[in-house]
């Protein structure tokens, strides 16, 4: 090898004190959430499912925009496809609802592939606009399908919601655990991805696409993987959302505000390009919504103002501020060299 340098004794560390504490916190939170129906009744389950799927959508969008540089404003395409696929699989093909949620995610990923072939030819703002246009095309197509209620949409037959569970309370619990599984599953997927060798590639792309290519990272393939996995998770989330709502229409299922704009708020406020950011962003998003529930339009105005201020004052979001000041990481995706 070149220049036989003396190698000092060293050790590579992944976890930090903060991350070990965070792991304890994460486990406690998961146990608390899993046992919640036992001690808190059913009142809060719906809100927690909503937090779970917004967090999962935010983690997916962060992977896209924060790491792969794919600023999509068309993720509602995959929420909508997931929702409609759930209806199609259960009503037209007789698939049981929970397996249909998984199949809906796969359907979204399958449709994401030809979509990628088109939108990946576009760069920057054109990519963003392209994803939106594609979502509108999907909305238009879904509105034409007679078996799925055309433009006015349709309701899920009672027999199918009964297939989730006989009672209303039972359904809430099944949907709660499904939502929890998707939320926690998405966070773990993102974490293990970013921690892996492929995560090193993705983080390199985040920091410099040019340099990533020059050290042998296949940028296009990595980006495609992110796009397809994000579509898979987003499709499952869409299916879950419409299994809970019981009624779907093209306008609601492909809504850019509900399924993409709010998600962008969460990621931008919390901190783009980190796993921790979307958690913090979700906290702020749902906190503001809770505090301002009675003020209607003020909620949207304050949310927008918060996002603008944070974009101007802290381009890497609230988590960026904290991470810079205290040098912490809660999800140990980095490597530290300890010389001995």
């Amino acid at each position, binding site marked *: 090898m070149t220049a036989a340098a*003396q190698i000092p004794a060293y050790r590579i560390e992944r976890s930090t004190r903060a991350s070990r504490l965070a792991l304890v916190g994460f486990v406690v939170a998961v146990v608390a959430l899993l046992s919640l129906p036992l001690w808190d009744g059913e009142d809060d389950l719906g809100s927690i499912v909503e937090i779970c799927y917004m967090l999962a959508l935010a983690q997916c969008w962060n992977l896209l925009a924060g790491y792969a540089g794919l600023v999509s404003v068309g993720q509602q395409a995959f929420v909508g496809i997931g929702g409609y696929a759930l209806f199609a699989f259960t009503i037209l093909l007789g698939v049981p609802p929970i397996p249909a949620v998984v199949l809906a995610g796969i359907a979204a990923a399958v449709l994401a592939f030809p979509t990628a072939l088109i939108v990946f030819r576009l760069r920057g703002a054109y990519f963003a606009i392209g994803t939106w246009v594609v979502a509108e095309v999907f909305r238009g197509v879904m509105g034409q399908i007679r078996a799925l209620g055309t433009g006015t949409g349709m309701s899920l037959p009672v027999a199918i919601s009964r297939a989730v569970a006989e009672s209303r309370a039972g359904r809430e619990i099944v949907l709660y655990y499904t939502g929890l599984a998707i939320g926690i599953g998405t966070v773990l997927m993102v974490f293990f991805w970013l921690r892996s*060798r492929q995560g090193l590639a993705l983080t390199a792309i985040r920091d410099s696409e040019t340099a990533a*290519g020059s050290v042998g990272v296949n940028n296009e393939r990595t980006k495609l993987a992110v796009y397809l996995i994000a579509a898979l998770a987003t499709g499952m989330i869409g299916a879950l959302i419409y299994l809970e709502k019981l009624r779907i229409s093209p306008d609601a299922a492909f809504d850019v505000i509900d399924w993409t704009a709010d998600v962008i708020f969460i990621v931008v406020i919390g901190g783009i390009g980190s796993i921790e950011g979307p958690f913090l962003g979700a906290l702020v998003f749902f906190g503001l919504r809770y505090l301002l529930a009675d003020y209607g339009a003020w909620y949207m105005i304050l949310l927008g103002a918060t996002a603008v201020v944070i974009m101007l004052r802290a381009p890497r979001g609230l988590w960026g501020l904290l991470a810079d000041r205290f040098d912490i990481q809660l999800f140990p995706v980095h490597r530290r060299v300890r010389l001995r």
Partner: protein
Amino acid sequence: MAPILRLEHVAKSFGALKVIDDLSLAVEAGEALGILGPNGAGKTTLFNLVTGDLRVDAGAIEFDGRDVTALPAHARCRLGIGRTYQIPHPFGAMSVFENVLAGAAFGAGRREAECYDRCIELLVLTDLTRKANQPAGSLTLLERKRLELARALATAPKLLLLDEIAGGLTDSECQALIETVQAVHASGVSIVWIEHIVHALIAVVGRLFVINFGQKLAEGDPRAVMNSPQVQEVYMGIEAE
């Protein structure tokens, strides 16, 4: 020996500006070639064409006996073309160690844990060990240039392209860099080095290639090239007085 790199009638324009103009060039395996030329002559562009950061408008590029003209940058890197950027492109929010690790894991195509020893060795070689855990974005310009070198070496190149890595160094730093590049060369890596610091270049390379306006101005033995009338006139005009 067969050439490790061969450019055949390569051309590149940016709009109306012809930056590389029907240029042909060969680098023998195991050779160290120096490239000289005034600012804006097209030297960095030449590297970008060889690495695949830019596509040629015309001509062909062959590396290690393969036509790589149509290959993307990552594929050329994996075949064995490593490069440093004149303007460093660190992975700014990743640690210095992780920057080098990315090179070793993807360029050299190895499992992560198998790369650790080599990465530490390269940090020692480039005197960045104490900065290993710092974000690369926090490094000074000179440290960033050393990181460029460490990261390029981590990809285990057969051909190493160095773009102005000696600028701004003190005499002793420059001497250390010369020895490092000599050691890399001695280990069997072919080298193409763009550099304005002529004495550093001549200490390492066996041949010089001078570019002006995207065309070959002179080529051959370093001393003969430096003393040739064209180079004296066009490039070193003032120093020749």
